[in-house]
């Protein structure tokens, strides 16, 4: 669980940091490879292999998420280091989910979430301390964002996915997580303060992602699969 927390901290930091060095497109495409890395790690460690339908689901969802990212393409400097960070974000995110798949067979969701989130928060605090990044003294709007991020994406989002890891393969949960950019694009389009009209490539990509998720979570995909190597 400690390793899972450290991987989560590294995943959060590396992905956000990658956005400063590479294009959003490269970052999104590389991070979207999470299900592929999860597939590799789970196959080596847990001997879990996705079925035929889920393999198609992974391919469609990754292709769709890549299209969404490419629709947001722009030039940037220092792309190579940014790409490396994004790749690091994908690998650490995949590792975090595969560990969760294994540990969640025996550990309750709330105990697992508490330990993993606490370790990740402590690691980020140490990182902030080392780089003299402030963790306090923010304006009220920042605190509102912190609260909203904690209540939705963290408490319901990540914890819900950790709960699902007991019932679905890590690859399936990772494919489902690719639905995030689709929903984010819809919200960014509907919220007047943002109002970003998604390009055609993002619309096509969104449809592919949803098709891929549908294939992955279908009964022939990764739904309701117990862990191949249960914990003692």
């Amino acid at each position, binding site marked *: 669980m400690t390793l899972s927390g450290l991987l989560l901290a590294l995943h959060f930091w590396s992905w956000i940091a990658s956005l400063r060095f590479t294009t959003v497109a490269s970052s999104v495409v590389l991070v979207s490879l999470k299900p592929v890395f999860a597939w590799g790690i789970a196959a080596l460690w847990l001997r879990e292999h996705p079925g035929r339908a889920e393999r198609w689901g992974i391919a469609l969802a990754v292709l769709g998420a890549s299209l969404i990212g490419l629709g947001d393409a722009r030039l940037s400097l220092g792309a190579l280091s940014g790409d490396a960070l994004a790749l690091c974000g994908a690998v650490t995110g995949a590792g975090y989910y595969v560990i969760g798949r294994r540990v969640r067979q025996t550990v309750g969701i*709330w105990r697992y979430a508490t330990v993993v989130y606490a370790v990740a928060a402590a690691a980020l605090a140490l990182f902030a301390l080392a780089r003299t990044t402030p963790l306090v003294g923010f304006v009220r709007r920042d605190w509102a964002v912190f609260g909203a991020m904690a209540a*939705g994406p963290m408490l*319901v989002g990540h914890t*819900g*996915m950790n709960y699902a890891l007991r019932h679905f393969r890590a690859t399936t949960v990772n494919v489902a997580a690719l639905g995030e950019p689709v929903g984010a694009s819809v919200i960014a389009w509907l919220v007047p303060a943002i109002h970003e009209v998604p390009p055609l490539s993002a619309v096509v990509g969104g449809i592919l992602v949803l098709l891929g998720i549908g294939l992955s979570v279908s009964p022939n995909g990764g739904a309701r699969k117990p862990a191949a190597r249960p914990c003692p």
Partner: protein
Amino acid sequence: MPPLLVLIVAVLATTYAGPIVRFATAPAVAIAFWRLTLVLPVTGGLAVLEGSREPGAGSRTSHLTLLPAPRSL
């Protein structure tokens, strides 16, 4: 709650992370730190409840129930 429904709700809950983070001026590390820290009182409280509801919680036999069954050895 069915696991598939939980997974769908979880993914939907993560969708507004990207749009909402644009309204923050705080550094990325601070956002990541506080999103994790603010949920800890909730998950911690529920973890205590979860532990107290486990069979044999608080008794000396609780450790025995965690031992693997002979068949799995």
